[in-house]
C-alpha cells in the first residue's frame, strides 16, 4: 500500500466511545474482533478508511485485519441500506417459507441478497437463525416480523420507507 493511496482517503472520525474502547482493549490479547465490533457499530459497516486508521492505531498489519474481517459473516465491507432487512433462513423458517419471502423481497426491490437499492433505502440480507423459531418465518428490520407472509411485505416496505417509525 503506497502512501499516496492512503493520503487520498479522508481519515474518518472515531467517536469518543470508540477511541476509549480501542485504548482499553488494544493491549489485551486477542482483542481485534471485539474492536471490530465497536467499529462496525459506529459506522454501520467497516469502511476501508476506518480499517486503515485502525490498522495504524493498534499496530496490526492490514492483511491480518482483512483476513479476519472477511472470515466472519457478521462484518460488512459495504454500506447496507438505510433499512437492512434480514430474512431468517434457519431451518424452521426455511421449512415455513423463508425462501419465498426472500424471493418476493428480491422481486419487489429489484436487488439480490447483500445488495443495496439505488436510493440507498433498502438492502437484503439472508441470516442464519435469529432464534425466534416459534414465530417462523421471520424477517428482522429494527423489529422482528413474525409469521410473515409475502402478501404483507408491500405494507412493511411502505412503512419502513416512510420513516423512522417502525410498523
Amino acid at each position, binding site marked *: 500500500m503506497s502512501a499516496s493511496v492512503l493520503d487520498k482517503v479522508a481519515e474518518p472520525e472515531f467517536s469518543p466511545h470508540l477511541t476509549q474502547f480501542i485504548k482499553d482493549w488494544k493491549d489485551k490479547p*486477542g482483542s481485534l474482533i471485539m474492536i471490530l465490533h465497536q467499529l462496525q457499530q459506529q459506522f454501520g459497516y467497516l469502511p476501508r478508511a476506518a480499517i486503515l486508521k485502525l490498522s495504524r492505531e493498534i499496530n496490526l498489519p492490514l492483511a491480518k485485519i482483512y483476513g479476519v474481517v472477511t*472470515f466472519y459473516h457478521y462484518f460488512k465491507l459495504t454500506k447496507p441500506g438505510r433499512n437492512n432487512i434480514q430474512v431468517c433462513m434457519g*431451518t424452521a423458517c426455511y*421449512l415455513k417459507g423463508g425462501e419465498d419471502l426472500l424471493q418476493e423481497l428480491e422481486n419487489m426491490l429489484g436487488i439480490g441478497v447483500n445488495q443495496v437499492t439505488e436510493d440507498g433505502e433498502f438492502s437484503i440480507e439472508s*441470516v*442464519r437463525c435469529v432464534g425466534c423459531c416459534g414465530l*417462523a418465518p421471520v424477517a428482522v428490520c429494527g*423489529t*422482528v416480523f413474525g409469521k410473515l407472509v409475502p402478501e404483507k411485505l408491500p405494507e412493511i416496505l411502505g412503512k419502513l420507507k416512510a420513516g423512522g417509525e417502525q410498523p
Partner: protein
Amino acid sequence: MALNQFCLVCGGTGCESRHSDAVYKNLKSAAEELGVGNQVQVVKTGCFGFCEKGPIVKILPDESFYVGVKPEDAHQIMAEHLVKGLPVEHLLHKTHGHHSGWGEYASQLYQKQVRIVLRNCGIIDPEDVQEYISRDGYAGLEKALFEMSPTEVIAEVKASGLRGRGGAGFPTGLKWENTRKTVSDQRYVICNADEGDPGAYMDRSTLEGDPHSVLEAMTIAGYAMGASQGFIYIRAEYPLAIHRLEVAMQQSREMGLLGKDILGSGFDFAIEIRLGAGAFVCGEETALMQSIEGNRGMPQPKPPYPSESGLWGKPTAINNVETLANIPVILLKGSAWFASIGTPTSKGTKVFALTGKINNSGLVEVPMGTTLREIVYDIGGGIRGGKAFKAVQSGGPSGGVLPAQFLDTPIDYESLTKVGSMMGSGGLIVLDEDDCIVDVVKFYLDFSVEESCGKCAPCRIGGRKLLNLLTKITKGKGTRADIETMRQIGFAMQRASLCMLGGTTPNPILSTLKYFENEYLEHIDHQHCPAGKCKDLITYSVLASKCIGCTVCARKCPVNCISGERKSAHFIDPAKCIKCGACYEACKFEAILVS
C-alpha cells in the same frame, strides 16, 4: 399491604419480538395508576417455553395463563383480574375450546418434562441476582468453596455422569480432570455460547432466562480446575443474552460472588465476554479458541487437546451453556440424585428446541430416555394441520433425519447415533408430508458448505461436490450413479476431515439415503418430487372441471401468468409461471393441480 399477587411476563426473545416489553411496562404503569403497585409485583422472566403463543403473562398465585397479550390489553388485565379478581376471558389460554388455567396447560405440557437446566426460566427475573439466590442460587458454589476440595468437586461431577450437551457427549468431569492434571501457571474455563445450529435456541433461552446459573457454574469449574480466568464466547447475534450476562456479571461482582476473594474464600475468578462474529465453525472448540485469540476461526488438529494446550497454549476446558447450567444443581443435590435421572449411559435431562411442522413450538426439557414420540405428540401436540408425520431431524446440519419407525427410540447419545442421527445441541425439527427430504438435505448441505472454513480439502471440496450432486437431483437431472458417488464422498469426508464440521457434513445425506432412498430415486428415475417442493420438477395447472372462474388466482399471481374470463375455467401459462404456489394457496375449490 404486602405483595400478594405476581404478574410474570415472558421476556424471552420470542415474546420480546412481539412486544412483551411494552406489555411489561404497561402492566407496571397500570398497577401504579390503579393504586395496587404495592400489592402486585410485575416481573419480567425468561422463556416459558411456549414461544408459539407469546407474549405470555402468568398470574400468581391463581396460576391464570394469558396468551397472545398485546400492550393495549395490559390495563384490562390489571384492572379486571388483579384488582377485581375477574379473569379476562378472551385472553385466557384455551384447550379444546374451553378455558384452562396454567395448571391444566402445564400438566399437559409438563407431564413429561423435568426442568433442571431451565429450572429458573420463566420463574425468576433474570436481571435480579436476589431472585436467583432465593432459589438456591450460588449455594452450589458456596458448598464447593467451603465444604469440598477441588478434586472432590471433580469427583462429584464425574460421578454424576454428566456429558457435554454441545453434541459430542464427552464426559464433563473427565474433561475437567484432564485440564487440572496438565501442569501450568494458568488455566482457562470457556463457556461455549456460540449456538449456531439453525433451528436451535436452547442456550440463548438459558442465558436470557437464567444467566447466573452459567456464571456460578463457570466459577465452580474454575475452582475445580485451578483456573482464575473464564471467557464466555457468545454470538453477537444474541444482544439480549449479552445484555443479561453483563447485568448478571456486574451484580455478582458487587456481591463478591465473582472477582477477587470470592465469598471470602481466597479464590479469585474473573469472567470476560468475547463476541463471535457469525461463523458456525467457531462452535468447534479449537476454532473457537482461535477466534478468542483474535484470528480467523479455523480449527486446529487434535491432539493436542485443549485440556493440554488450549487458549494461548494453556490448558483449557470448554463447556457448553447447557452443560454448565447443570453443574450448580449437581453440587447442591449430589451426583447420586443426578445420576438417578436418565438412562445407563446418558444421565440427566436434555433441552430441545422443538420447531417445524408441529403444533406447540417451544423449548422442552425432558429426562434422557424419553422417546421421540412423547416429545412430538405428548408435548409438541402432534403435527400441525392434521398432516402426516414424515420425519424428525435432530442434530442440525451435523445430524440426521429419522423416519416414523424410530419414534419410539429413547433419546440418549448412543441410541440416536446407532440409528444414524446424533444428539447434537438440541434442535428437533419436525417434518411433515409436505417436506421433500432431498430439498431439506440440500438446505443443510448449503449451510455446511457456506460455513466450511476452507482449511482442509475433504470438507471444502467434498461438501461442494455433494451440494452440486444434490442440486442436480432436485433439478431432475441426477443419475443412480450419483447416489453411489455421494456415499463415497460422504465416507471419505467422515474419515478425513480435520474437524467435526467436515466430518458431519455428509450425515444428513447418509442418514436419508438409509431411510428415504426411494425419495431420491423418485427424483432421479421419474423426475418427480413426491412432496411437490422441488420447483424444477413441478408444474401448476388448472383443473377445468373444478375451476368456477372466481379470478382469485389470477389476481394473486405475481407474474400475471393466469388468464381466463370470469366464471369460466382459467389457464396457467407454464412458460411464465415461477412456481411460487400463490394460486394453489389462494384457490378455495382445489382447482389448482400440482404435478
